[in-house]
């Protein structure tokens, strides 16, 4: 049985559907992130899981027990969850230790056990030195750790994180991604993590749920999500990509300016007449002559280029069809603008986009 299950969950504000028909099941100990642009419904979904708002349709269950439905909601304080907020919401009138101990006080723990658990949690997040400080005396990263400690010390059934790193500067954000993953590996609390930052989701998550306009676009492991995006939105939102649109005719796929042999594509049998591929810029090879390796080879011309230090960013027109493919190449592969090149596209590494519109 799933630890946490969202079934047909929807939320409407007046005419606007903020969340539409979301189905999701989390296994115990899993960290799943909800990824999407602002306004995609991820925070609304999280607040429904927390019990701050009732769903318009659908249900939320934990361990098979109904927590939320349009008919009623178990209030947040009785859901045995905990949450980390975008603003951290550290109470400025309490010290670090008091903040962390708050949830345990409400659970009426014995004094000794309470002190010991607070102590242990503070050392896990490396705050034992600062426990008597007030939040105003802490840096942003330290406040973030207090929020983590306060949420995890009660050993919640489910931990919810709402854009927890968006208020930190870039270096700290990168550090805290790994910190969150480290704490998750240590405690294995079932976690829902809301973010709009794809690399944050990639680093922290077991699975990523990409949301757009209130709907789930794709649920997958980070690797599969990046290499096998199924929708145009996912391919574009998670990393940079090129879209190749063509038609399948007589075993060949015709694109503007060139055509390739359909048989080389692993799932050629699943192709319809209209074909859309997502091709990542770094999966395309650039060569001065046609190579012998099997694959899709296309002659093209460099339109423009930019040197980014760690790589070249080339724009290539394949087959003179007037389109531009972006290609990332290592710094040593130098081509001039206007030069004729051979593009090598590996059919194993392109993803077929399911056009749903």
């Amino acid at each position, binding site marked *: 049985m799933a630890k946490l299950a969202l079934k047909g969950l929807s939320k409407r504000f007046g005419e606007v559907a903020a969340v539409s028909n979301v189905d999701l099941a989390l296994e115990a100990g899993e960290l799943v992130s909800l990824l999407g642009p602002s306004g995609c419904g991820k925070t609304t979904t999280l607040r429904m899981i927390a019990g701050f708002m009732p769903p318009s349709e659908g249900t939320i269950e934990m361990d098979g027990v109904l927590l939320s439905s349009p008919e*009623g*909601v178990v209030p*947040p*304080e*009785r859901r045995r969850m905990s*949450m980390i907020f975008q603003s951290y919401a550290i109470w400025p009138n309490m010290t670090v230790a008091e903040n962390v101990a708050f949830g345990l006080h409400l659970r009426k723990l014995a004094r000794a056990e309470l002190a010991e658990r607070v102590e242990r949690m503070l050392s896990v997040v490396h705050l034992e030195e600062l426990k008597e400080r007030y939040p105003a005396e802490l840096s942003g990263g330290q406040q973030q750790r207090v929020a983590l400690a*306060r949420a995890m010390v009660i050993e919640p059934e489910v931990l919810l994180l709402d854009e927890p790193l968006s208020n930190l500067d870039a270096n700290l954000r990168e550090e805290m991604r790994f910190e969150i993953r480290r704490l998750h590996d240590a405690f294995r609390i079932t976690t829902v993590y809301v973010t709009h930052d794809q690399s944050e989701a990639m680093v922290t998550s077991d699975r990523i749920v990409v949301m757009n306009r209130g709907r789930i676009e794709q649920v997958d492991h980070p690797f599969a999500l990046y290499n096998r995006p199924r929708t145009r939105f996912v391919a574009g939102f998670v990393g940079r990509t090129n879209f190749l649109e063509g038609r399948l005719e007589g075993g060949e796929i015709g694109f503007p300016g060139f055509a390739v042999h359909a048989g080389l594509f692993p799932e050629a049998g699943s192709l319809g007449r209209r074909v859309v591929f997502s091709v990542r810029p770094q999966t395309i090879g650039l060569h001065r002559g046609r190579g012998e390796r099997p694959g899709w080879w296309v002659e093209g011309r460099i339109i423009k280029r930019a040197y980014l230090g760690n790589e070249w960013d080339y724009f290539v027109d394949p087959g003179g069809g007037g389109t531009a493919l972006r290609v990332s190449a290592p710094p040593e592969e130098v081509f001039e603008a206007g030069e004729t090149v051979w593009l090598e596209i590996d059919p194993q590494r392109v993803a077929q986009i399911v056009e749903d519109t």
Partner: protein
Amino acid sequence: MAELSPSLIPRAARLREPDGLRARLRRLEPAVVVWLLLIGLLLFLVVGPLLMLVVQSFQHEGGAGYTLENYFAAFTNKHHLEALENSLLLGAGVAALAAVFGVPVAWAVSRTDMPGKDLVRVMVLGAFVTPPYLGAIGWILLAGPNAGWINRIWMALSGAEHGIVNIFTFPGLILSIAVYSYPYIFIFTSAALDAVSSEMEDAAHILGSGGLRTTLKVTLPLVWPAILGGLIISFLEAIALFGTPAIIGLPAHINVVTTQLWQLFEYPVRAEVAAAFAMPLLGITAVLFWVQRRTFGRKSFVTITGKGGERRLIKLGNWRWLALGYTAFVSSISVVLPFLVLAQAAFSRAWGRGFSLGNLTLSNFHYVLVEHTTAGRSIIHSFTYAAATASLALLLALVVAYIVNRRLLPWSGVLAFLCVAPFVIPGIVMALGYYAAYASPPIRLYGTAALVVLAFTARFLPIAYTNSDAAMRSLNPEMEDAVRILGGGRLTVLGKVVAPLLRRSLIGGWILVFIPATRELSAAIFLTGPDTQVMSVVLYELSGEGNFEYVAALGGVLLVATVVIVAVSSRLVGRDFMLRRG
């Protein structure tokens, strides 16, 4: 999940978010009850009195039938029209003079390196918390014809037969009000100046503009809407003021609207005519407040962009002594000199006999605290009524502000509007409204403490509400959500997080209502009975009898108590909370 047995959940569920019409009604019920309760309370406090005042202005004497006679009686009488004209002149004069005092002082404190700024701020605060009628008494002692200190010193120095200043004149009346009105202009102007970035001035300098020209052409125009706001408030405060016009104006045969209203309540009482005559005061206030809001709303370029730029102080060089001299002059005539002569009077057998050991006595204090029939009790009344007012106003304001900010109820905007509506009701008009609505049956509260406290609460509700609202806005709702998700109920939220976090601003808001309530005169004089006398009314009566030594002693008690309260609360909530806008 042992604690959350499946049978428990549907029950909780039904309680929170039921379905179907009947269940829906049940869900809405508590909210509706709270809303109705609050709206009922606010209607009683704010709308009822105003409505009854308007109704009364159209009624025959004794309340039989409707008529326009009262308006004829009110606005065809020559004296009444003269009073109206005087009020407008007085308001304009006070506003202009207050700007002459307030704007340069605000500029010097906010933008320059003038020394002694902290002391200047204390002086402005002193003028702000001085009851105007007490200042007026001080000015009688200073500038009364011949006997006033200024005149006596002049005569002694020049050998002249007569003094040179007389407070019992129209300019004297304007001066004695303006010296306690300039803090409004100061507060508005310095708040705006504080927000003007030095970069604005640098931009003018780089284009070749000199220091003085930049100040006059760039800085002051930027804060002009704020000055205008201060002018309007000064004007409105002046035309609504009762104490000073009664103490200084009436002996000089200068009648204004407020004193005329008071005379209409002398035998034979003509409350209906008074109601009609109060309408222009209400109308002018409402219109000017609207103008002020509009000005601020549209020209908000004044303050807002200041955040990004750094602020540097203008180096005045030797001119800073001129600036200091001027602020010292303003402080002297508003606080130092009046207080000096009041203190002398409080400890004198007869104030006219001057500073000498033989003239020294404590008997004035003994008289007002022990011997006088009502003065002693009036002190207790003033402070208990003010405490009750502050608590009631703040509690009501907090509940409404919480509901508005957390969007707990529909139509909460109506509640907020009613809370701030009394801003446009002058105290004396509010008092007449309470007299019309709740003095006589069916609700007979005249002579009770409740009538005074309710009227004060309505009068100061806007102060309480703006403070509560600002405090609520500063509180991130996630702070409250964090308590809920960690297992705390709504009460835990209020007790452990909301109350502690708002404590400072709540004490500040309480004090901001408490202090004006201890000295409120214009509403009190119409609503207090023999058993509910407050200090302001006793002070007014004592001054009418010419007993300035007693007035000074009782006023001293009021001021010392106020200073102690402000000092203690400044410790609790931080310095100059009274001079902050917003």
